[in-house]
């Protein structure tokens, strides 16, 4: 620590602390204009000039960018310091006499009418004063580099490349919100919102949080969702070897730092107007080792967490290049990386269990971890030939094909085939979270995590212990997340960055300040005031309508919310033994069954009965909370309350399916 004395007050600071930060710590105010915690110190306005004395000499420095390295005396109000600041402000006032922030600082410094006549005197109260905050924020904070200085001396001004509307600007308005004079205006409102300024205010706050807080929170801007890989492994939630296990010693080989090292693109890609989160990452110059583009250097969009988990650890593949190559060819062929990874994991377990062999795969070795085999199946899928023609039909159809053609046990295939409603599971182990089992199982379009991600609330925090608690969470969160889809908005800005005071908000899991921000957005867009409950109601109408639509298409009953046992508990002996202490303890403490006298098979069977019974109880509780029948169909009372009974044919459809109330 270094001891500094500022206007006679002593304070201790870490080496490298600036005089400005040290002064604030000591309770001494130093005026500053071009300074902001959002960007690196710049020292251009010189309004924060102070006098320092290191024992050998006294001199004037700018407080915002002077790093303290040795004991020093700082004088913020010495005659020389005040004279310097006054001169700086007098010159600024001569050029921009009507700009309020300049007038205010000049007044505080005791500067009267300027003695000079500036040749570029500008009477505009919103004139640009060349502080550079906008240029630096766009460059350092937003990473878009849309703004820059042009010209020198008196001709210096802030502009965009060639003065044109830059294609790379996502309209985040960070520049306008940091500008101290109001010089930057956004005028392009193609959607004609009722109150554009209200939307901008809400957006500016989110931009501030992303730029300021992400580096301490999720690092979405550095590695995107890939930051989750090692975290999920820490919590035993990362799918490994077809969802058998939740962690693996080789995870460090595919951890986020490995991808960060190869990510070459990381600016916001403009997918969402005004968003600075820049979660999308890309790898430039990946040289393909397989397939039709072998030898070419390509750009790969990703990989994200779901690709790393489903098409990496879930296949026993711990080579970043292989995951990037799978990512590339999935995109190239138009195949979803989650579905491909999860169906390949099923294939590999079948190969390991003897359901498949080289003869049945057309000579391919599809043992867990086989990179060559995985990529070859992907290429065959795209060409519609060989084993790829079978694999490409997905887990649900493969279960039937393997049973019919290869004589495999259908019950075993059902247990290990990670699909529901025909869709492959996404990348989270949910065995220890009953609520998430429901989140996946009841999800309208199949087991994806976009409706509900409740594992931490349920398994780690133990905030929703009862069936009713879980059912309430399985009401609120799916409705809330559905709302993003309804409005074409992304969920990441809701809870992948959070306000500093979210911890004390009373309901941190819901991030109330951000929910309020979305209400501001809706009100600013439509001109109608809304409360959070209004947004949930919007979703509830659509969600229930979708459930009825599923019913019409043959997917909307309790039977369709069934999930494979692999999603609920350990299917194989090896799985049970890998977490035996946990399972034995649960049998004893939760199910009230003493495992000691039981064989391993008996323990597995007992645990299965217990867990499957609880899943059915969960369905009962969720259906009740949602106003559905025990068969999982919205009741007539519910559709009437939501006002969707007016949809032609809807009530008749429910009645034809036995709904009477």
């Amino acid at each position, binding site marked *: 620590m270094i001891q500094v004395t500022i206007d006679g007050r002593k304070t201790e600071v870490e080496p490298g602390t600036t005089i400005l930060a040290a002064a604030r710590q000591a309770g001494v105010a130093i005026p500053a204009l071009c300074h902001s915690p959002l960007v690196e110190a710049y020292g251009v306005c010189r309004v924060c000039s102070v006098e320092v004395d290191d024992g050998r000499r006294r001199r004037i420095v700018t407080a915002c960018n002077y790093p303290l390295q040795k004991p020093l005396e700082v004088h913020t109000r010495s005659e020389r310091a005040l004279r310097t600041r006054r001169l700086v402000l007098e010159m600024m006032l001569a050029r921009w006499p009507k700009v309020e922030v300049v007038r205010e600082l000049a007044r505080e410094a005791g500067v009267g009418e300027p003695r000079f006549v500036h040749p570029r005197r500008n009477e505009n109260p919103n004139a640009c004063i060349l502080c550079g905050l906008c240029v630096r924020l766009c460059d350092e904070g937003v990473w878009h580099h849309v703004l820059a200085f042009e010209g020198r001396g008196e001709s210096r001004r802030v502009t965009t490349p060639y003065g044109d509307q830059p294609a790379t600007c996502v309209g985040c308005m960070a520049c306008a919100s940091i500008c101290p004079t109001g010089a930057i205006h956004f005028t392009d409102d193609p959607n004609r919102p009722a109150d554009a300024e209200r939307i901008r205010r809400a957006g500016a706050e989110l931009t501030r949080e992303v730029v300021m807080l992400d580096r301490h929170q999720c690092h979405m801007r550095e590695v995107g969702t890939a930051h989750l890989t090692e975290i999920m492994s820490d919590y035993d939630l990362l799918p490994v070897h077809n969802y058998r296990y939740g962690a693996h010693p080789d995870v460090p080989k595919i951890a986020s730092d490995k991808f960060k090292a190869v990510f070459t693109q990381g600016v916001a890609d403009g997918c969402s107007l005004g968003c600075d989160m820049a979660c999308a990452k890309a790898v430039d110059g990946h040289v393909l080792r397989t397939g039709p583009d072998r030898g070419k250097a390509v750009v790969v969009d990703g990989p*994200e967490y779901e690709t790393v988990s489903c098409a990496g650890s879930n296949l026993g593949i711990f080579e970043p290049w292989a995951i990037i190559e799978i990512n590339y060819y999935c995109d190239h062929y138009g195949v979803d990386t989650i579905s491909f990874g999860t169906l390949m994991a099923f294939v590999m377990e079948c190969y390991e269990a003897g359901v498949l062999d080289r003869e049945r795969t057309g000579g391919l070795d599809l043992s867990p971890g086989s990179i060559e085999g995985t990529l070859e199946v992907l290429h065959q899928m795209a060409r519609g030939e060989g084993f790829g023609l079978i694999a490409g039909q997905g887990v649900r159809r493969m279960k039937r094909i393997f049973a019919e053609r290869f004589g495999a046990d259908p019950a075993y295939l059902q247990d290990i085939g990670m699909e529901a409603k025909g869709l492959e599971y996404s990348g989270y182990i949910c065995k220890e979270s009953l609520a998430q089992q429901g989140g996946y199982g009841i999800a309208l379009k199949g087991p994806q995590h976009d409706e509900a*991600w409740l*594992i*931490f*609330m349920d398994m*780690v*925090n*133990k905030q929703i212990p009862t069936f009713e608690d879980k059912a309430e969470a399985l009401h609120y969160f799916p409705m809330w997340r559905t709302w993003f889809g309804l409005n074409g908005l992304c969920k990441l800005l809701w809870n992948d960055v959070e306000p500093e005071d979210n911890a004390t908000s009373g309901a941190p*899991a819901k*991030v109330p300040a951000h929910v309020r921000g979305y209400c501001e957005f809706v009100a600013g867009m439509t001109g109608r005031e809304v409360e959070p409950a209004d947004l949930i109601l919007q979703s509830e109408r659509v969600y229930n309508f979708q459930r009825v639509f599923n019913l019409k298409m043959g997917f909307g009953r309790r039977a369709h919310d069934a999930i494979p046992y692999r999603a609920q508990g350990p299917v194989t002996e090896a799985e049970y033994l890998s977490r035996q202490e946990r399972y034995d303890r649960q049998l004893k403490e939760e199910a009230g069954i003493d495992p000691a006298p039981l064989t391993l098979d008996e323990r597995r069977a007992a645990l299965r009965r217990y867990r499957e019974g609880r899943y059915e109880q969960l369905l009962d509780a969720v259906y009740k909370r949602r106003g559905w029948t025990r068969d999982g169909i919205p009741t007539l009372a519910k559709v009437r309350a939501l006002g969707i009974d007016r949809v032609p044919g809807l009530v008749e459809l429910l009645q034809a399916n036995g709904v009477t109330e």
Partner: protein
Amino acid sequence: MTLTVNGDPHTCGEGLTVEGLLREKSFSFPLRVILVNKQVVRREQVPTTVLHDGDVVEVIHLIGGG
């Protein structure tokens, strides 16, 4: 000493800090709220807050997932 962590007993050595507890439990997810005996522990207090026998610790993980 014994703590209660998210409702479960957790046995650990004397002098454990909140940061040490997070490490022991492999609680690596960054978006979380930590309460010791119902009092919020702020981010900057995590390394220096020492736990005591009988403390009730809640490490509320906020929702993650794509």
